[in-house]
């Protein structure tokens, strides 16, 4: 009984911020008060019609799409090289590829800002894409690496003995067997990139900023429940992605198949 109460309390504690945000988003008045004094969808309408959010949503899609499209093949090759390649200093390479996880966002953001300024790229979304690639890469490498480890190296030899060129063997045998790791990596990359804020704040402007940055800017200037509405949409979207992935890609298996 006590144990069950503890679980309920923990769950309540963990979901409380989410509940507050969602509740506030339906508040009819322009104050961020809790509990809400009624029910209204006006802030949702505001989110969808606010031009800066529209622009930021497009930026988010472009940046996340571009970063993921680059990070997946790069991360896959890196994972293959780490596991299979005749690599000198394998541990150093592994540490480097996974290091963005331990570099503080502020430091990374500052680094990218200085680099972008030096290259004259501050007005371009390409800097954001490049930064996001480095931020999501560790997640992709990790996920794919698990699948690579589960591969029997004899499979590629078998494919070769059956007449498959190295490329054909990769296409017909290796890649299909890496699919679970690739999906998991893709999922992580999308979620991380869509929610990335600190680094992006350093290297974006009003034209290139992505949604989390636009939300922050909005909160700095206005204090109405619009931001709660947008946050709620974000929560729902993230939840949907994870739920669909879990349902159709069998995520549990991906993470448990060591």
């Amino acid at each position, binding site marked *: 009984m006590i144990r069950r109460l503890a679980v309920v309390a923990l769950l309540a504690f963990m979901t409380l911020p989410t509940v507050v945000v969602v509740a506030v988003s339906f508040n009819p008045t322009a104050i961020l008060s809790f509990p809400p004094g009624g029910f209204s969808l006006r802030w949702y309408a505001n989110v969808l019609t606010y031009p800066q959010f529209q622009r930021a949503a497009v930026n988010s899609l472009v940046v996340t799409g571009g970063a993921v499209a680059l990070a997946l093949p790069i991360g896959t090759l890196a994972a293959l090289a780490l596991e299979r390649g005749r690599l000198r200093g394998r541990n150093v390479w592994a540490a480097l590829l996974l290091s963005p996880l331990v570099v503080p966002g502020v430091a990374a953001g500052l680094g990218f800002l200085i680099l972008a300024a030096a290259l004259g790229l501050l007005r371009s979304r390409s800097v954001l894409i490049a930064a996001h690639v480095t931020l999501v890469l560790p997640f992709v490498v990790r996920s794919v690496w698990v699948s690579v480890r589960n591969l029997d190296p*004899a499979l590629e*030899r078998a494919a*070769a*003995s*059956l*007449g498959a060129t190295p490329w054909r063997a990769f296409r017909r045998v290796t890649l299909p*067997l890496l699919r679970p790791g690739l999906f998991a990596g893709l999922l992580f990359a999308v979620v991380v990139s869509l929610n990335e804020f600190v680094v992006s704040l350093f290297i974006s402007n009003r034209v290139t900023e992505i949604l989390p940055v636009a939300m922050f800017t909005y909160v700095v200037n206005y204090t109405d429940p619009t931001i709660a509405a947008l946050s709620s949409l974000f929560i729902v979207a993230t939840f949907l992605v994870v739920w669909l992935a879990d349902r159709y890609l069998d995520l549990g298996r991906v993470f448990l198949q060591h």
Partner: protein
Amino acid sequence: MVVELRGCTRDYAGVRAVDALDLTVYEGEFLSLLGPSGCGKTTTLNLIAGFVAPTRGRILVDGEDVTGRPAHLRGLGVVFQSYALFPHLSVRENVAFGLRERRVAAAEIERRVGDALELVRLDRHGRQRPAELSGGMQQRVALARALVYRPRVVLLDEPLAALDKKLREEMRDELRAIQRSVGITTVFVTHDQTEALGLSDRIAVMSHGHIEQLGAPREIYEHPATRFVADFIGASTVLRGRALDPERVAVTGGPPLRVAGGRALRAGADVELAIRPERVRLAPGPGDNVVEARIEGLVYQGAQTEVAARLGDGQRVRAFVSEPTPAPLAAGQTVHLHLPADAFMVLA
């Protein structure tokens, strides 16, 4: 000849796995590479398959130099110890893999995959995934996959090692039957002498990267050329001695032993005599070719008991005594062992 290795050497990080190996595989034969782990037998197979390149030497298939040719252009069939079946493809697609890579027409693929699955008695399991099949069935899928595009040679890397004993014996017989019916040239890697003796037309016994002896199973078993071969095949006893005349050998701490058959001995030469444990008999007392030995260990094996004994000078003798033994045996006891003159194999 189908496959020829000429002076092939392969080093791995300074370790010589295969050392200046010469080997010829003839059309239609079943050749076994037999040896303990680390003797270079699997490396030899990988050299033929094209998975590793020789550090030195040349490899010929049908008289053509294929030394620099990658595995996918050699067109040989390989069955792996782990089977290496593609887990994401059905049994049928696994078998069809080699044909698809060769761009065989769809109808032809259909027919040949059907034939191959029938050959290994798996025609009703085509739609299943490899993981749904038993070990023996997976083994047969791997065999069908390697045979379906009619390779010049099929290379088998310890294909029976992962099966339990009974299944292994069944598969061994089946493997032989299939090889016979297809008539395909086969190179078989194993560390199991029973498998090699039962399956092969010829056996190459390997040790430390070179071939100790190459010959028919009976020849290898009855006339081992070296101490290593005598010991590895049939775990023989090897006695050291000195030839007194062409027919007699003095072994320290015992009467001279008569040696019949084989080559005549050179008087005064040091010789090594090998004798199989199943040829050693218990003798009731002293006599011709009878030595005294002290029993050190007994291992009861049901149909027989394995006796480990030592001669007066410390040389070991192993004997299989069939059960029930004529008199109870115990460790520490002194027994008389008859070593028949015609059972000795004189090692080079």
